């Protein structure tokens, strides 16, 4: 790394530069992480109204009463977590399977219409979700009559265009010779996909799985639109309800936010590598 080193420059300058940048990086990291830190330590406070709360930046108290308060708000609060888990899991499996298959077809199988179908998908990625939202709502709720069902929550998430794009980008880099060989050996396309392509694309499929899970765990808008009763809601919608129903309860609100975020934090720390790869894998070259 000779970005900082100047030719014949002395070593001491380099160390000082590095020291300063590490100090700055840590300082900015503190600012960025502050909301999360504040959320977690505040969630251990007493479930009392905000007027009586004294915010403190260091944990002074440790009680789980606020978590209890949050869970007691609705009899379905545990179910919110399970709903989120179910919806995110179904979306993850379905996206990996179907977007993976479509990605393989678009990258390696030649069939008429493949170019312009893929082009259509690319165009669709540019369209803001607000355009889709209203007609999609009318379709699911008024035409299909699926309001407040698991089907309405899951159907639109089954195969994301972005995932197809990711899979296609990755799979086009795989050597075509391997596929040709397998064909000569008598494999059909389905066998090629399961026996050759999937094992070779494990990384990108893992990235797709994690990104899809995260997106669907954190999604708020669509579940909020199509759920009517508390037992069908996801944790994000539940947290929103709690926020508007108990506007003055500081610690319980933080406890709710913590509950909604902790599963993703755990997932992030255990699968960090794939999360960080996931960011760059889709970015345009550059």
């Amino acid at each position: 790394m000779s970005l900082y080193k100047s030719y014949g420059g002395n070593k001491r300058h380099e160390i000082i530069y590095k020291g300063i940048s590490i100090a700055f990086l840590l300082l900015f990291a503190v600012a960025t992480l502050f909301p999360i830190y504040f959320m977690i330590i505040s969630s251990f406070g007493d479930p009392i109204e905000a007027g009586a709360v004294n915010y403190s930046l260091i944990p002074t108290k440790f009680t789980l009463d606020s978590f209890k308060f949050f869970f007691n708000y609705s009899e379905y609060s545990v179910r919110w977590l399970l709903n989120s888990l179910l919806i995110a899991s179904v979306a993850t499996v379905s996206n990996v399977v179907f977007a993976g298959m479509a990605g393989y077809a678009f990258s390696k199988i030649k069939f008429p219409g493949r170019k312009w179908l893929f082009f259509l998908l690319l165009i669709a990625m540019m369209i803001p979700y607000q355009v889709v939202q209203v007609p999609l709502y009318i379709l699911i709720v008024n035409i299909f009559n699926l309001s407040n069902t698991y089907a309405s929550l899951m159907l639109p998430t089954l195969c994301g265009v972005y995932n197809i794009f990711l899979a296609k980008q990755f799979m086009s880099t795989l050597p075509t010779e391997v596929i040709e060989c397998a064909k000569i050996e008598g494999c059909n396309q389905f066998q090629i996909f399961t026996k050759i392509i999937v094992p070779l694309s494990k990384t990108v499929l893992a990235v797709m799985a994690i990104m899809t899970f995260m997106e669907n765990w954190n999604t708020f808008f669509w579940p909020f639109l199509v759920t009517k009763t508390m037992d069908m809601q996801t944790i994000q919608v539940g947290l929103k309800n709690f926020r508007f129903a108990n506007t003055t309860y500081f610690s319980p609100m933080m406890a709710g936010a913590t509950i909604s975020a902790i599963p993703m934090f755990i997932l992030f720390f255990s699968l960090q590598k794939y999360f960080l790869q996931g960011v760059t894998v889709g970015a345009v070259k550059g």
Partner: protein
Amino acid sequence: MNNCKNEVKKRKFKFNEDYFWGYVFIAVALAVFAMFTLYPVISAFIISFQEFKPLGSQWIGLENYAGLLKDKLFGKSIVNTVTYTVFSVPVSLFISFIIAVMIYPLKKSLQTFFKAIYYLPVVASGVALSVVWLWIFDPMPQGILNTIIGWFGISNQNWLGSSNTAMLSLLLMSWLSSHGTSIIIYLAALLGIPDSFFESADLDGATFIKKLRYIIIPLLKPTTLFLLVTGIIGSFQVFMNAYMMTGGGPNNATTMVGLLIFNNAFKYSKFGIAAAQSLVLAAIIAVISIFQFKVLGDDVEY
């Protein structure tokens, strides 16, 4: 001879078989896409020319679009969205760039450490973060942000409750969170620059600033363009912070287009107007993206 013919026939059949498998493999993806993306987009155009009624909508031509021209709130929401975008996206890119350049010379393990730290807030949901920031902006004197500005002798602010500071508050939130993605993308691009470029610059006696000016910034232009376009697209669709924290208020100072479309559609059931607004939003985004690629990207190849 006969054998040869057989071979040709067989290969022809194989080709057809590939067609078959191709369509099988994309069938589900295509069905989901057609039903939940393509159909809604086409339907949005139709709805935007109608006045929505549960039992048979009425065709009213361009009336929804004409109404937008006179709609003061729509104009204001566009101005708010543009303001938010102009002040949040470039600042975020600048911060991310500086951070990435600072992380770049560090050891691999430290790089991973900082990447993970800066990415962590991205993992938390928008609802959770909005709830937390709602309390950071507590207008009471003991509120966190009021305490902090108190150290510098600045008096109490009614952050989200006053039309002077509401937009600033949302911007502050965007400046202090969620740079993770762009930092990691910038860093990946930086690591892609061959070290020999810097070495030869060293031999010519280039200073750090010169390396930045003549090597890094030009080579990272495609990355910047990519982040700028995606950042602006994302920022134009922003909804969560306004909805959760200010509700668009006070006095519509933070009503963004995303929130306005939501209100029109799902609060007042004016689906036609909402569809028209969403298509105008899509058109604005398309024009801005094309403009950026034309102006900034003339020497960028993809």
